[in-house]
């Protein structure tokens, strides 16, 4: 693998780190398997792209993308909590609805951003290559968001959210409005995923309505893979493990697709993803079984 390919994979891994944090929040903290992310990732990209192409401030566009993602998460949570639709099913409904909504927002299947003033434009005038500058900038942003998420999850409200996902009966017995917690958590989760989508569109140069396919699987790969490699219950360890998982996943995909001797091509990406997630799910169990034996 060339250095450029490595840095590209690192950049993608960092962008999907935001997705991993979002999936960690829904899947692990709230125990809510959320397929909305397949729709909220391109939603973030679509909102940011349309805003930027329309001449808007790219930072504001990225913020709007997060708000749109939060709204998508809110709708999913509302369906699950108030309409009592099974949580997985509610998220599938959101996902499918978002496909149409994203097409409506963009007005066409894809929008090019290569020549537009994205939030990354200031980096292009730096003396270092874009392939180095982008991952560093995204990595700093990701660490900052991870820090904020840690602060939140260790606050009184964050603890209430964790209790809601773990033992909702005990949570309401202690005066926690579990419905509000699920809605807030899902909003936050999808805001993070949409942020990932907005950054993806701006760094890769386009927003595409189909770019969300498999986002949940990539997020799960990062969360499950990362946490099985770096176990540990504390929020800090768990969130960093998710980021590590996200980067590792991208590197493994890059290796698999770039190594000529394996013979895999770009179109095999989803197959590779499925195999990697499957391994991440099974390997910890095998390890445990061997320890028992």
């Amino acid at each position, binding site marked *: 693998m060339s250095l450029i390919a490595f840095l590209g994979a690192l950049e993608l891994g960092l962008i999907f780190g935001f997705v991993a944090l979002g999936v960690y929040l829904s899947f692990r903290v709230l125990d809510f398997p959320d397929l909305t992310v397949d729709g909220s990732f391109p939603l973030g990209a679509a909102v940011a792209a349309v805003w930027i192409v329309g001449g808007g401030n790219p930072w504001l566009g990225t913020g709007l993308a997060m708000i749109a993602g939060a709204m998508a998460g809110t709708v999913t949570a509302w369906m699950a909590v108030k309409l009592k639709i099974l949580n997985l099913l509610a998220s599938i409904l959101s996902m499918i609805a978002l496909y149409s909504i994203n097409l409506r927002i963009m007005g066409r299947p894809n929008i090019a951003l290569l020549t537009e003033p994205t939030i990354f434009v200031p980096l292009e005038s730096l003396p270092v290559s874009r392939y180095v500058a982008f991952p560093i900038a995204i990595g700093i942003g990701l660490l900052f968001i991870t820090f904020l998420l840690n602060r939140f999850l260790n606050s009184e409200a964050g603890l*209430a959210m964790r209790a809601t996902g773990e033992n909702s009966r005990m949570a309401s017995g202690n005066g926690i409005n579990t419905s509000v917690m699920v809605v807030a958590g899902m909003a936050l989760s999808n805001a993070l995923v949409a942020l990932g989508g907005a950054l993806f569109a701006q760094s890769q140069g386009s927003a595409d309505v189909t770019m969300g396919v498999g986002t949940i699987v990539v997020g799960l790969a990062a969360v499950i893979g990362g946490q099985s490699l770096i176990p540990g219950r504390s929020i800090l360890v768990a969130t960093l493990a998710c980021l590590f998982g996200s980067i590792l996943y991208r590197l493994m995909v890059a290796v698999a697709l770039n190594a000529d001797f394996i013979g895999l091509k770009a179109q095999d990406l989803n197959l590779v993803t499925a195999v990697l997630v499957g391994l991440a799910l099974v390997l910890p169990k095998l390890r445990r079984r061997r320890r028992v034996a």
Partner: protein
Amino acid sequence: MIELNNIHVTFNPGTPLENHVLRGIDLRIESGEFVTVIGGNGAGKSTLLNVLAGEVLAEPGQVKIGERDVTRLPAFKRADLVARVYQDPLAGTCGTLTLEENMALACARGRRRGLRSALDTRLRGRLQENLARLGLGLENRLHDSIGLLSGGQRQAVSLLMAALQPMEILLLDEHTAALDPRIASFVLTLSADIIREQQLTALMVTHSMRQALDVGDRTVMMDQGEVAFDVKGEQREGLDVADLLKLFERARGQEVDDDSLLLG
């Protein structure tokens, strides 16, 4: 004071599974009173507790806790008035959260929860002091996830957690039933001590007639969703299990047919 007026609860109304669990319960509990509730399977003990906790709403009926009418309030909205320990030691705590995180959760029962850090040095000190009274060495295990504790330890912690914040009533739902006898008696003694020290109003559901007489200062026996009898003060002094059975027969005109009540 706690007031239950003509409480009815029907599960699955209008279906073939309809079950009229509570049939007109009237109960007044004075402040500082420790009531034990006894009754066979299906007598409605747990439902009565759930009505007080807000997990089941009475229809019709009226529930007053303190001066407030809480009949329609869901559990989370009356958490400032009601604290609870469940039968299942796993139910009252969050297994993957640490000991201190679980206790911090309980410290905020019924309060607004903001973005302040849930734990600080002062709170840790208070929690350690609290845990030390158990004599189980848990004060040195604040950072352990609570899932590592035994069932008995978890139940003792649940009890401490319930008592961390002020309340109008403490609900104990057969909270020693799932424990081995030695730990059960430890948790029961601890409950009685805490209730006396903090002068709590408490309602304890139990399966054991012996236990119902050993602690508390009033005993209510339930049968088929009604109060079979209610004894306190002099009337209750010196009663033993056989007397309870006689009281029951006199009140209901039938013999106790639930072995578990006699074996407990």
